[in-house]
């Protein structure tokens, strides 16, 4: 595996609980207590109704592959080809991610296929949520 420590982001106050959750291998989402909607990326206020009465909830980790592309060459040290993806979470919001655990060949991929979260421990303090296809036997 390539060493990708240099990719570790630095959280900001409004995103810190998300990154702390990822470290525990929990996908945390902000949810508005006023309008009930989840949003992502995490903000200080609900982007739908502008309430600042938010709570953090653990997402199911299930979702669908909304769309993807497959860069062929290395990018930022990530060896190519790899699958860059947008996953639509069961709770509604979409997240940019990588799809792993499947050959990066378009033949293996279909928009809306079911995926689930897995965590990639990038450094001692940062884990990245990534997704893999839900196995058929599961």
């Amino acid at each position, binding site marked *: 595996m390539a060493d990708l420590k240099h990719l570790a*982001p630095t959280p900001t106050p409004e995103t810190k609980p998300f990154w702390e959750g990822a470290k525990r291998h929990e996908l945390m989402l902000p949810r508005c207590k006023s309008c009930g909607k989840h949003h992502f990326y995490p903000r200080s206020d609900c982007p739908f109704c502008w309430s600042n009465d938010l709570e953090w909830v653990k997402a199911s980790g299930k979702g669908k592959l909304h769309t993807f592309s497959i860069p062929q060459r290395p990018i930022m040290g990530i060896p190519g080809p790899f699958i860059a993806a947008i996953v639509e979470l069961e709770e509604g919001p979409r997240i940019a991610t990588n799809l792993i655990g499947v050959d990066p060949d378009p033949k293996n991929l279909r928009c809306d296929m079911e995926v689930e979260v897995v965590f990639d421990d990038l450094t001692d303090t940062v884990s990245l949520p990534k997704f893999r296809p839900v196995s058929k036997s599961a």
Partner: protein
Amino acid sequence: MTDFRNLSGKFAIVGVAESDELGTLPHKSALQLHMEAARNAIADAGLKKSDIDGVFSAGRQMSTETAEYMGLRPRYIDGTMVGGCSFLHHVQHAMAAINAGLCEVALITHGESGRSRLAMPNMSAPKDSLLWQFEVPYGIVFPFTAYGFIATRHMHEYGTTQEQLAEVAVATRAWARLNPKANQRGPLTVDDVMKSPVLAWPFHVLDCCLVTDGGGACIVTSAERAKDLKKKPVYILGTGEGMGHCWINQMPDFTAATGATISGPQAFAMSGVTRKDIDVAMFYDAFTITPILALEDLGFCKKGEGGAFIAGQRTAPGGDFPMNTNGGGLSYAHTGMYGMFIILEAVRQVRGECGERQVKDAEVALAHGLGGIFSAAATMILANAPQA
């Protein structure tokens, strides 16, 4: 308050120009490219440096830098930076400023050392930025990855094919072959595109724009002032701008540019023209999927039918929908923020200055740009008369 729609035909583009050279220019800084384009555009208009009292530009750390380099001290300055279509936004902002009496002669400039990277500002994202936190660690860094998301979803929902994407590149190249300033002028077939290496599936290398150096500039003033200038004025009948998101992970609909669905109706409503009145269209074409979405988002065909619209070389020379007649970002020039070149070509077509690639009787032109990753959008309708 002025109803902006009442300003239709009250302003004109009176000067357009590229920098002295386009292409690979390791001997010229980005600021020199701004300067050359500005100097050429002011000459095209038959104006003098001292006439300029408004300066609009994008892509520098400080928007005063371009004016400073050119030795200008304008009374109005606008540095709106929304990516490649910034210059189309600048045209609308210039109209508003002139209408308010804040300036009279607006210079809009672009200069970018996109290939040679000379004197370019550092635009890299810090590690606590939204971009680094939510996209960079996944290798979502270059536009081809993000634009690929849109092509993939469009293919999934509407059956658009890679061959249809390739048709865009082929039609655009056919126009480039008629433009002496175009960077790529060799013959191109759908098969050539399909056999070119995959850069990021679903895109082949030839689905992606060029990376070149260059500059461009245009001059906007009132229709009144435009009357006595060197070239026949090109009147601005309608403008509109909009946005859907900034970063790709927030794109509301991966098969449509939401910004275009906001900018397009404003421009058409203001202009009083219909889709059928458009004689020639310039659509931002960073990737082959981009004009397909523009055709749909601006109402030239139904959502999902853009691929079929393009197929059969309908947008190529001789087709019934002349599009990107300069050869586009795909084959003529793409400095990074391509939008200025859309304006230049739309103006030249309406003036009838396009030589071999001139669209016969082109009286009304549409120019439509995108900025970021289908993020911001601006649409403009130009004509050879103040009323359609």
